[in-house]
């Protein structure tokens, strides 16, 4: 049996609906159609009245989820594309993120963001927005990179008492496969050593973990032994695992698909430099997508985002420092 990353997301939602009567899903085209990417395929049939089609109203989708969560429900909101969550930005960052701080009433909503690019998607169906949402206190931001994490972390996201921005990567939907869904896993707020190594720490998350692992394979042939850390959760950030790795390797390369300004890479590097400057033998480096809107044509798109070749080249340079 082969289970994809997308199947894992569907199965996690099915399990949550089965196990908890307070769970429901709200989003555009998710009921009869099963979602633009089929992440809710057949769920409306299996759980009548609990998988609801929403009007094209991202603000009201999130606002209503907040109201339902206040009343004890555990809503899952599917954004059709991460990019469209910009329309709900106010509800997410001003209403959901501040509710517990202001009122001591929890806001357990899960907002699923189909993130990242596929070839041909262009500027408005390709964005990765974890850096933006991580900026706001009160939000939890998860970025699963594996089939196993997609499953267990989505279940944890639904259980968490705070608003969770669940960044699921569209490029991984049908490309990642696993034999079975896990019974247990690391807790969501713990980073994972995806590949052990001693020469350089490559920190990545979401689909960039796979580019980093591929780069590590190349580097291995050149006798560079790279350690790859999968952050898994961007906020809260498990900086301890990163610092421990840097203590072993003394070199840090951060890779993320979001734009460079004020992003996850910047935060990881700032944390390592401020808390572990003495551990470093070389200046930390970062690789992001280019600082432009995301191009449509595959020729441009493949050069816009970080690739294993670019990661390997940067790692090589750092190791020669």
């Amino acid at each position, binding site marked *: 049996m082969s289970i994809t990353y997308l199947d894992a997301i569907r199965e996690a939602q099915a399990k949550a609906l089965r196990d908890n009567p307070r769970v429901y899903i709200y989003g555009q085209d998710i009921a009869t159609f099963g979602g633009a990417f089929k992440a809710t395929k057949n769920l409306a049939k299996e759980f009548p009245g609990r998988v609801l089609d929403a009007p094209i109203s991202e603000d009201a989708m999130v*606002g209503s*989820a907040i109201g339902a969560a206040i009343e004890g*429900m555990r809503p899952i909101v599917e954004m059709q594309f991460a990019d469209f969550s910009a329309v709900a930005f106010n509800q997410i960052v*001003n*209403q959901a993120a501040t509710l517990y701080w*202001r009122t001591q009433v929890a806001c357990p909503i899960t907002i699923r963001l189909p993130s990242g690019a596929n070839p041909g998607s262009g500027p408005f169906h390709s964005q990765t927005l974890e850096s933006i949402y991580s900026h706001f206190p009160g939000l939890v931001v998860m970025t699963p990179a594996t089939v196993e994490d997609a499953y267990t972390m989505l279940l944890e996201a639904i259980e968490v008492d*705070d608003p969770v921005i669940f960044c699921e990567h569209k490029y991984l939907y049908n490309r990642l496969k696993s034999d079975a869904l896990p019974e247990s896993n690391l807790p969501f707020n713990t980073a994972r050593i995806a590949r052990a190594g001693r020469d350089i720490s490559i920190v990545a998350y979401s689909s960039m973990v796979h580019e980093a692992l591929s780069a590590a394979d190349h580097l291995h042939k050149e006798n560079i032994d790279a350690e790859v850390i999968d952050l898994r959760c961007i906020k809260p950030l498990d900086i301890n695992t990163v610092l421990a790795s840097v203590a072993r390797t003394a070199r840090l390369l951060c890779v993320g698909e979001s734009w460079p300004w004020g992003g996850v890479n910047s935060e990881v590097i700032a944390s390592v430099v401020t808390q572990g400057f003495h551990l470093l033998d070389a200046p930390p480096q970062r690789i992001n997508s280019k600082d432009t809107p995301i191009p449509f044509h595959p020729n441009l798109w493949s050069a816009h985002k970080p690739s294993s070749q670019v990661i390997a080249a940067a790692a090589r340079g750092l190791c020669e420092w």
Partner: protein
Amino acid sequence: MLDTLNRPRRDAVRPVSREQFTNAFHWMLLARAVEEKLASLWRAGKIFGGVYLGKGQEAVSAALGVVLEPGDIFGPLIRDQAGRLAFGEAPIDVFRVYFGSRTGFSRGRDGNVHRGKPAEGYHAMISHLGSLISVVAGALLARRFKGDTGVVGATTIGDGGTSTGAFHEAINMAAVEKLPLVVVVVNNQYAFSTPNSRQFACRDLADRAAGYGVEGHSVDGTDLAECLEVLGRATGRARAGHGPQVIVASCLRLTGHAEHDDAFYMDKSLYQTPLGRDCMKVAEQFLLERRWADQSSLNAWTQAAKVQVEEAVTDAQREPLADPSIETWCPYATAKIADALLVR
């Protein structure tokens, strides 16, 4: 007895009960006493941040508060002191929040009109207009999931807030779901300094209801008896399963946008129109005409409200203020996350 705008006819005899009217009037009196005290505390420098008052809107706000029933949901906006009190807010909780008392709703973390007890159906607005409507709609959706029927969720907004996308998205969504949502649009003629003529181009905001496929009502917001009648009918319609109700109450903001605003831009001739009537005076006149009160009982009620406010202020001022040394600085409810932050 309704005209073409679903508005009660002016010449109709209001079928209002003495008990409900005097109850609402007491909340109006108390609200005005609370707000006059807030203004004076603000002028004395005892309050940080803005003070936004509901002078002129007490009738419609109190009417909404009294037609709601226990278990209903209420999402008040900035000029709803009367409705908040009628819905169950204690005067001391008002002053606790304005002072930043450690025992207040938000313990100094958020102030003034952003207070509420959301878990008890009393929602705490944020400053972004229109965004509370979908929250109240979502709370109603949850009640439906839980099988808790026969409740309504009410929220208010001003003329300016109707121009937001959030207003449109939320009412449309509530209409699709046929939720028992009551949206009271209080058209007080100005959004901060912007008059109706620069805010919308439709004939009457109540006309918008038809576009959403919901029931619309218009009411004279200066007339408590009419407000009780129309809001009572609208909440009844929502409660009985007829879907969202939009009520447009017309009145005039009898104050600046906030206490720091002298409202120099307002068209002073509006005060001479029926819109500019003070709803307190209109209600007092009604009580006297019906012989439900005489001048001495009105004076006694007003005095009692002032005493109640003084006591609340005195008690709230004794309480310790928000204190950074005991603040957790943790915005997360999840134990696993909070514990890790608090260790640091």
